[in-house]
């Protein structure tokens, strides 16, 4: 079998719901619900601010994110050159001819700047830069401004420009320009893939008025490519002809835009916006590491584009508050975090005010539904908003009386159903009303587990580490139990997986704690959050990828003994203890960029 996998590879996973970012990165899977092959691509890059230009202006650039330059610009019309080292700008030798709307390409030590507007006329002037000074070389055959291009100081390309809307292109051999084939669509004020070459170039957008048209050049002829999503002129570009970003510009209404679009060689995808909208800006670098500099009006703003770590991170936001603040409640919910059910719990400290009230969440607000028959707290809930179980717990808070009764919810009312075998509190439950599991709890502290098959509770293998106030998620044949306190009341980080017959220890949590809550529908992917750790209550959140735990963004405040459900991509933290009885709700979301693989 090992040899077979080495030769043929592993089979594609068949899953009912899409993988999350951590499990799905680099993977292809078959979604049995939608009957699609899918994968996750990096969702988007992001811009971050960097050191300001010494002289604010519209300008053009060349080079890379750690060794770049801008030259020329306006207003006022200047030949100033500034070099960028990845964090700040330093003035260098000026262009011989002050002008703006040039076309520049190359590197910080070998740049080409051609064309432009001097304030009175289009320019055909071409200059090359050696890292310190500019030297004039052969003029363009057609003077122009606002053109696009690509290449180097020894193999350059210029295309289009004004006045107005030229289609003619020219190729540079290091000393002189020769006319090439015309573009399909004449234009000016366009953007271009700044690291494109004389034989593989890409230009996009342009004026007058702004358009979305894109063309590529193969050294001989121009080909129309798929359009930009946002028509604009005066935008900038970075990268090569098969992978680039374009950013900024002015829309047809002449308003500056912050949009950024990524080109994958086939189509454009809108990604993270610039923080400062602007047109006529300088752009250079790669599609994965670009720089946006300057722009109208006399902007000094510099921003760096980073596409290297772009699997989006999760974050918590506040959700709609509970009508009845509570902690130690029972909670159920399967599927999206917009379909939660929370019920029972304690409404005051020291937790003797036990409630029977149940509430449903629709993604924005909570609505009361049928009460439990028996008010209870510190029990366990599982199932869905329309088919849930409320299991055991205490009718008088931590002081007892612990019960073994179970109630079943049908979406509107509760009905008593088969009792579990061992009355308990401070345990967790997972699964559905036809296939569930409960494990752990006290008093006394136990590792006892019971499995529900739709008609009866059956004792199954105990947890290896007896514990109370653990959290857990999954199904009754693929369960994860995490944290809690051992019989000596010491908080533990121990995690165990259940396969339907036995529990096996797997990777520990980073933070030992009890009174945590969790989200997850299988034992290979989930989220654990909040609780009480050794140092006190915590906002800590950890993501489980089936092998190990990774700390991710904290809750906005310390919360313990709350309800929780959902998945590692979309979860809820409901109520709980926040130093007082909480009605607060937090929603966890990890943006995903799942793509269906087409033929």
């Amino acid at each position, binding site marked *: 079998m090992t040899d077979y996998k080495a030769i043929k590879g592993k089979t594609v996973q068949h899953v009912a719901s899409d993988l999350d970012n951590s499990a799905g990165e680099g993977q292809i899977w078959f979604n049995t619900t939608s009957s699609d092959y899918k994968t996750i691509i990096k969702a988007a890059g992001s811009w971050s601010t960097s050191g300001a230009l010494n002289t604010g202006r519209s300008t053009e650039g060349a080079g890379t994110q750690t060794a770049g330059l801008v030259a020329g610009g306006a207003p006022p019309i200047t030949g100033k050159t500034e070099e960028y080292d990845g964090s700040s700008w330093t003035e260098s030798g000026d262009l011989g001819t002050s002008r703006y709307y040039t076309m520049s390409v190359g590197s910080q030590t070998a740049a080409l700047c051609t064309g432009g507007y001097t304030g009175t006329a289009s320019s055909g002037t071409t200059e090359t830069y050696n890292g310190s000074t500019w030297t004039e070389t052969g003029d363009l055959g057609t003077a122009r401004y606002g053109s696009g291009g690509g290449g180097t100081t020894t193999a350059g390309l210029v295309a289009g420009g004004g006045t107005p809307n030229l289609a003619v292109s020219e190729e540079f051999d290091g000393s002189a320009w020769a006319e090439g084939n015309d573009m399909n669509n004449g234009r000016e004020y366009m953007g271009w893939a700044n690291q494109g070459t004389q034989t593989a170039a890409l230009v996009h957008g342009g004026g007058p008025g702004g358009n979305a048209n894109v063309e590529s050049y193969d050294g001989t002829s121009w080909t129309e490519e798929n359009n930009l999503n946002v028509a604009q002129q005066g935008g900038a570009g970075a990268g090569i002809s098969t992978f680039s970003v374009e950013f900024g510009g002015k829309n047809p209404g002449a308003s500056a835009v912050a949009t950024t679009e990524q080109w994958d060689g086939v189509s454009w995808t809108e990604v993270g916006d610039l923080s400062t909208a602007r047109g006529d800006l300088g752009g250079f670098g790669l599609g994965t590491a670009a720089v946006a500099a300057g722009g109208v009006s006399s902007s000094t703003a510099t921003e760096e584009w980073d596409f290297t770590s772009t699997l989006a991170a999760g*974050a918590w936001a*506040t959700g709609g508050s509970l009508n009845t603040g509570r902690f130690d409640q029972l909670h159920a919910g399967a599927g999206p975090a917009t379909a939660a059910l929370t019920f029972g719990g304690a409404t005051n400290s020291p*937790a003797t005010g036990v409630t029977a009230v149940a509430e449903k969440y629709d993604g924005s607000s909570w609505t009361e539904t049928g009460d439990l028959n028996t008010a209870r707290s510190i029990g366990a809930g599982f199932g869905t908003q329309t088919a849930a179980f409320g299991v055991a717990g205490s009718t008088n*808070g931590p002081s007892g009386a612990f019960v073994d009764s179970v109630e079943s919810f049908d979406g509107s009312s509760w009905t008593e159903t088969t009792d579990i075998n061992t009355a308990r509190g401070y345990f967790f439950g997972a699964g559905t009303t036809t296939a569930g599991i409960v494990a752990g709890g006290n008093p006394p502290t136990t590792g006892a587990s019971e499995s529900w098959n739709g008609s009866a509770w059956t004792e199954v293998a105990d947890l290896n580490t007896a514990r109370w106030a653990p959290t857990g998620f999954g199904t009754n044949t693929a369960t994860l139990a995490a944290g809690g306190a051992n019989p000596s009341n010491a908080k533990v980080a121990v995690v165990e997986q259940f396969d339907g017959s036995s529990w096996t220890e797997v990777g520990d949590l980073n933070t030992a704690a009890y009174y945590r809550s969790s989200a997850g529908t299988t034992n290979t992917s989930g989220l654990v959050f909040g609780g009480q750790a050794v140092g006190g209550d915590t*906002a800590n959140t950890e993501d489980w990828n089936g092998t190990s735990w990774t700390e991710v963004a904290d809750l*906005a*405040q310390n919360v313990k003994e709350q309800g929780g459900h959902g998945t590692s991509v979309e979860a809820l933290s409901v109520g709980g*203890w926040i130093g*007082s009885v909480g009605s607060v709700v937090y929603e966890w979301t990890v943006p995903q960029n799942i793509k269906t693989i087409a033929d």
Partner: protein
Amino acid sequence: MANDIFNYCVATNTGKGFITHDDSRRFWISGYPANVWVCTDCVESRHWVARNNGTSKTKSEAQTLVTNNVNAAKTAWDDDNEEGETSAEKIARLGAKPVDITLP
């Protein structure tokens, strides 16, 4: 009120929209007893305070609010006793005694 690193304020968590995912991604924010919130000091967090009708506080003012709240919780914990109850039983019943919180 900012101290160059953090903003301190009092604001009531109004639920949905009080903290958005964008807020969480743009700046660090942490809640404490007495509706005290501490954020990274930046333009976005100042806008967040204004958007939520927060009242800016100095660090000292915010710390006092938190400390008073924790002290009240400690007193309530100390005063809540049951006949013959051991310390472990009390912790099991009430949870651990509230601890002091020092704001960043």
